[in-house]
Each structure stands twice: as C-alpha cells, then as structure tokens.
C-alpha cells in the first residue's frame, strides 16, 4: 500500500509529459480553441475567473457531500434493519434493488418536479446514486461474522445490543468504508446529473452553459474542478478510514506476509 518517491515522481512526469504533448499538438495542428483548447488557455481561463469556479465548485461540493452523508446515514440504517428484521428485509430489499436498476438520469426530471430547481433536487440525486453500494456492503459486513464468535456471544450472554455494538458493527467497518469510497465518487455523478437537468448553479450548470456558447476551455476548467472535488471527498473518506480503523494497517501487513 506504500507510495514510494519513485511512484510519485513517475506520475508527475507522466502528467507533465501528457500536458506538454497536448500543448504542442494544439499549436502545431492549429486546432481551434472551441474544439480542443490548449492547456495554457485552460489555465488562463481558470486563473482569470477563479472566483466563479470557486463558488460553483462550492455549490457542487455542498450538494455531493450532503447527498453522500445522507446516503451513509440512510444506507447504514437500512442495512441494520435489513439484517435484523426478516419482514422488513422481504418488504424493502426488492424495492431497493428496483430503485437501483432504474437509471438515475431518468428519475432526475421527476425529482426536479418534486423538489424544485434548487439544491434539494441535486442532494436527493447524489443520495440516490450513492446509497445502494453502502446498503449492500453494510449488510454483507454485518453478516460476515465467524460462527465461533457468535457462539462466544451466546455463551457470554451478550444480548443483541452488545453483540451488535461489540462484534457486528466493528466487523462491518471495513466493508462500510470500502463502500463509502465508491459512494463518494458516485455522489459527484449524482450532483452533476441534477445540475444538467435543471438549475442555475454548480459546475454541471457551468458545463451546459459553456457548451451552448462553445466556450470549451470553460468546460475543461469545470471538468477539472469536478475531478478535484471527487478526489477531495474520496481523500476525506480514506482519511476517516485510517482514523477509525487503526488496526487495519497491521491487518494488511499480516496479509502481505502470509
């Protein structure tokens, strides 16, 4: 899992080389800016209008984080209910799967009707796109307990609450965090879909405008901002994972040695 200095310098070199080749190609072949702007033009666009991009990034980030957090809370709650109640499981599991199968892009216009053109519809879309992997992984994690541990709980008269807090929940943490990583990247998609379909704020909205005005460098800056936001949320989740699961470091070391 360790990242060495060679790894870092290799990725930096490859990024710089790609940008240089891109710059050279656009100049040599006189590619018009509205088809493919040069990296330098994109850079200029970003620097000269950075307050705009900062603000729109903030809007989109707010939507994705809110959707993501709601997805985490709702996903974990649903997973616990699914694991502990057979009736609820048979009632809601098929609906959750059905909801996941419907393309979210197709639901987006409906959500706009219900929740309006403001932030709420975008938050709801980010939530819808990202909660499914959390539910599924969390259910798996809560159920993946060694038989002997459950025997031990019964011998020690742990009761359901202690079994849940002391064994099932911590056991599910690695599953939860890997699903949160997936969900964090999905929430970007949800927020942008929402902004595409309707609204007057956010990076997705910016891309629509840039496209209609053929200001392609603007699109590129917005795209860049989007990937930065995705990275940022993913990084925060990875950081939380390290804080909440300090033992995992040794776990992976033991697996590597085995």
């Amino acid at each position, binding site marked *: 899992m360790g990242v060495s200095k060679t790894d870092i310098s290799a990725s930096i070199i490859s990024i710089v080389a790609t940008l240089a080749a891109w710059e050279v190609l656009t100049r040599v072949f006189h590619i018009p800016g509205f088809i493919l702007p040069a990296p330098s033009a994109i850079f200029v666009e970003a620097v000269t209008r950075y307050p705009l991009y900062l603000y729109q990034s903030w809007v989109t980030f707010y939507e994705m984080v809110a959707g993501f957090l709601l997805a985490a809370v709702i996903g974990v709650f649903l997973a616990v209910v699914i694991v502990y109640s057979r009736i609820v499981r048979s009632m809601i599991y098929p609906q959750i799967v059905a909801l996941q199968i419907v393309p979210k892009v197709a639901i987006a216009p409906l959500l706009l009707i219900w929740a309006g053109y403001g932030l709420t519809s975008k938050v709801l879309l980010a939530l819808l796109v990202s909660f499914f992997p959390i539910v599924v992984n969390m259910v798996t994690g809560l159920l993946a307990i*060694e038989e*002997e*541990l459950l*025997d*031990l*709980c*019964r*011998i*020690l*008269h*742990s009761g359901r609450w*202690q079994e849940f807090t*002391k*064994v099932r929940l*911590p*056991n599910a*943490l690695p599953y939860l965090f890997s699903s949160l990583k997936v969900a964090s990247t999905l929430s970007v998609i949800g927020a942008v879909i929402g902004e595409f379909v309707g609204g007057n704020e956010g990076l997705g909205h910016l891309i629509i405008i840039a496209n209609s005005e053929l200001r392609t460098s603007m699109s590129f800056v917005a795209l860049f901002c989007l990937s930065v936001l995705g990275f940022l949320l993913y990084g925060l989740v990875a950081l939380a994972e390290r804080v909440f*699961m300090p*033992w995992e470091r*040794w*776990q992976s*070391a*033991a697996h590597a040695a085995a």
Partner: protein
Amino acid sequence: MAMPVPRAEGDHDAIEIHNLTKAYASQDGSIQALSDLSFAIADTEFVTIVGHSGCGKSTLLRIIAGLLAPSSGAVKVRGRTVSAPLPDVGMVFQRPVLLKWRTILDNVMLPIEMLRLPRTKGAERALDLLRLAGLTDFRHHYPAQLSGGMQQRAAICRALVHDPSLLLMDEPFGALDLMTREEMNFELLRIWSDRRKTTLLVTHSISEAVLLADRVIVMTPRPGRVADVIDVKLARPRTPETKLDPRFVECVRAIGRSIGLLYI
C-alpha cells in the same frame, strides 16, 4: 468473582452426560451424530476426547456449553441440567477468533464486559493471565501483529478471564504447525496447573490427548459413542520426556487399538 451459575448442593461431578443422542435433519433422512453417550468428568479433571473427524466431538462440546440442544438424554454441569448457553464455560475454538479491532488486552477483557463483571478486578485477572501466557509485552498489540500460537494463547486467556469452572477446547491447536503445537501443549499444561479448571479438550492427535489428560475418552466414528476410556497414570508436571515413558507409549497403543489403527 461471582459466577452466574452457583454450585448446587451435594456432591456432583463437574460434568455428567447421560444417554446423550443427537440427530441432525438432512436432505436424505436424519444423520445420527451422537448415540447414547454417557460419561462423567470430576472436578478439576483434565479429560481429552479423541476420535476420527466427523465423530461428533464438536457437537458434543457445543451441547455441553448449552449452544445446541440434544435430541435426547441430558447434560448436567455441577448437578444442573444444561438448557441454555452457560457463562460458566470458557470456550476455545480451533481458530483464535479474536476481535481484530481490539488489542490483546481488550480482547481478553471481552467476557468481563459482556457479563458486566467488575472492570478493575477483571483487568487484574486479564493481566495476570497474560503474564502467565507470556503475552504481557504484547497486551497493546493487535491480533494481526501476533503469530498464530500467540493468538491462540490470548484466546485461552480470554476463555479463563471470567473464572469459569469449565474449560472446553475444540481442537485448539489443530490449526498450528507441529512445533508450535508441541510448545502450546506444555504452555496449556502450565496454565492449567496454575488455574486447575475442569477441562475437556477435543483433539484428533492421540499423543496430544495422552500428554495432556488424566483420562482419554475414545469415540467411535459416526454415530459417536464412547469406544473406550483410558486412564493416564503419568506423573505431573508432564515434560517432553513424558513421551518417552513406557506408560505413555502403552496408552497411545491402547487408544490406537480401540480407534482401529494397528500398532505392533
């Protein structure tokens, strides 16, 4: 430390097993796991059970611990019929099954927490046991940082920390390599001679069974029955030299014969 199961009045064996039968339902009729099993274990006695894989040894341990109900017959622990999981039991499984997110000390403390026993006294006992098992320096490590043998020693500490009267061990060293296994045998004997629990250990190693036990119960393949009971009259403490004692060899032979292995 107060134990949830008080000692019943009168003299009782620590464990009494009367005509125990266990059948499992399966797709083609029922499978007879245990058939008319009867034996008793005295207080502080160390008894081992040997038999082929699938002779119902683990089923027997789970019934004694109250994790599984017998089809007929009864198990009495200290004179009381077992009908629910018994906290008076310390259980060690083939795998250590430690909680990987807890340090070794916190793992050993799990029974204290779950049974809601006094923490300070519990922590004292936990540290005592860890010292006895040679794990003091590793008490703040995570299980993944320890070798398999050390993890299993921690699991034994966890089984003893709430001062149960019975120690049940289900092939506790079956997952370890042979050399570690030998070491663990003497390690267990050392801990046992310090704590003197009534111990029932299931194994499929004949020499391990003889080395550890006061008595060896030999079980037949499915359905599990008592084939033979062999008294091991070897002095304690047992040492690696014990294995060279003619009486040790005689016991191993006797077990081999009743299991159906041929020894000259």
